[in-house]
């Protein structure tokens, strides 16, 4: 794969995106901030929680989830969107999802910086556990790359997959302890047992534990999130590698 091409293509895509909109970049930062504020107020009222506390809880996993969701959404049409080149030049199809992933990740880092500022204002006591956050992003980033790659390949063959994926993501999101706290349920209840089987619980813990509970993420959190994200990347890579010869006929 041509690294020079990946670099040039990603750079020109970024330029294209922000060429005419100076506000475009600002919007990128405003959007997650406003989303977070609205959600905190609404759910704090619904859950009868202290707004300040709830915002800190919500902040942790929600920002990471939004990054994941956005990556998958952006990557989904990346290979189909690369038809202008895939039909004319010998180019590795990997560059298209990879380039979208890079763009989403760069945007996420900026958005994260802004929301982190907001968070530091809200949270009263800062703890040493915050230093683990950069590491906590890695499983999320890998999960996004793997899932996005799978979606990008499947989308070439089934153009109506977007709705299905959106539905699945929504289901996963609302069943995971991102909006609500896991101790909402009694310890031996069925719901609590189901949550322990929910993979996103472990991904979310990577952010919630250092930010909200002021503890280090546990071994299980790291093991499950690294394992699942690694598997998704492997699956995406194998899938695209296996089907890359057939893409041309479906573009």
């Amino acid at each position, binding site marked *: 794969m*041509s690294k*020079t*091409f990946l670099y*040039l*293509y990603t750079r*020109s895509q970024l330029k*294209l995106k922000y060429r005419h909109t100076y506000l475009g970049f600002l919007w990128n930062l405003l959007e997650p901030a406003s989303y977070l504020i609205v959600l905190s107020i609404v759910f704090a009222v619904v859950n009868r929680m202290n707004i300040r506390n709830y915002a800190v809880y919500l902040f942790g996993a929600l920002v990471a989830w939004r990054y994941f969701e956005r990556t998958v959404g952006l990557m989904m049409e990346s290979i189909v969107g690369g038809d*202008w*080149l*895939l*039909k*004319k*030049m*010998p*180019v590795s199809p990997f560059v298209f999802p990879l380039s979208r992933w890079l763009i989403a990740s760069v945007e996420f880092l900026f958005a994260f910086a802004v929301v982190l500022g907001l968070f530091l204002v809200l949270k009263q006591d800062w703890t040493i556990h915050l230093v683990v956050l950069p590491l906590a992003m890695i499983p999320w980033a890998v999960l996004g790359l793997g899932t996005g790659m799978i979606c990008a390949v499947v989308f*070439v*063959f*089934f*153009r*109506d*997959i977007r709705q*299905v994926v959106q539905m699945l993501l929504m289901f996963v999101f609302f069943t995971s302890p991102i909006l609500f706290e896991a101790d909402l349920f009694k310890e031996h209840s069925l719901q609590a047992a189901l949550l322990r089987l929910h993979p996103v619980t472990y991904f979310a813990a990577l952010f919630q534990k250092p930010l909200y509970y002021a503890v280090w993420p546990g071994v299980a959190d790291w093991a499950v999130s690294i394992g699942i994200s690694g598997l998704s990347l492997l699956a995406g890579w194998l899938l695209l590698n296996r089907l*890359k*010869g*057939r893409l*041309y*006929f*479906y573009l």
Partner: protein
Amino acid sequence: MIFSIANVHVAFARNILAQRSLKSALAGLFTHTAAPRFLALNDVSLEIGESEHVGVIGRNGAGKSTLLRVLAGVIAPQEGTVFAASGKHIVPLLELGIGFHPDLSGRENCYLAGSLMGYSIRELDGRIPSIIRFSELEEFIDEPVKGYSSGMYARLAFALATDVEPEVLLVDEVFGVGDEFFMRKCIVRMQRLMKAGATTVFVSHNLDFLVAQCDRLIWLDRGRIVADGKPSEVAAEYRRAEGSHSIRHGSAGSAVRT
């Protein structure tokens, strides 16, 4: 050896638009209807050596462009093997140019395509000015290529493809576009590349051009190689066969009418 392909089959599914959905895939599970296929290349084997100048002729739909795409590595055939010499700058100029992104400027597109041909950014920095000069597009080079006319588009593609000094050049019918003066410039440049030892494969309907420029001519018909040999002989055979073919059809038509 630059290219060596053996027993290559390429088939396209027809009415593909209807099949690219989950819905129709699920429906297909129950009805077991196989998609109708069109065989664009049917058991084609071919070798092209260093510094050969090969022309490819044939009627529309004979598989010429598909063959060029297989050589370029854009299409992976469903059956058969393809070998292409590694480490060579292979430049494909397929139907009206190189893959250009419509929203990016001519200059950005030159860098993108150039990097895919195996050149570094620094090498391209040195070459881009002369590419722009040759294409005569100085005024428009920083505008998105979607605003270009088809002639401008082809000029930029041609300037880029020939300026980077390719070792292998694959050209699919680009002589129809651009004005006469630009075409003449192109042909001069192409001849210089060929003299310098570049391997070239041309697909064209311009038989006289192919006979004059190539030292080997391949005639394709319905995905098969009908003839492969000296340009003047293959061209004569092609003219005779296709000419009599269409005349026969014409007389049959008139016979029915009378």
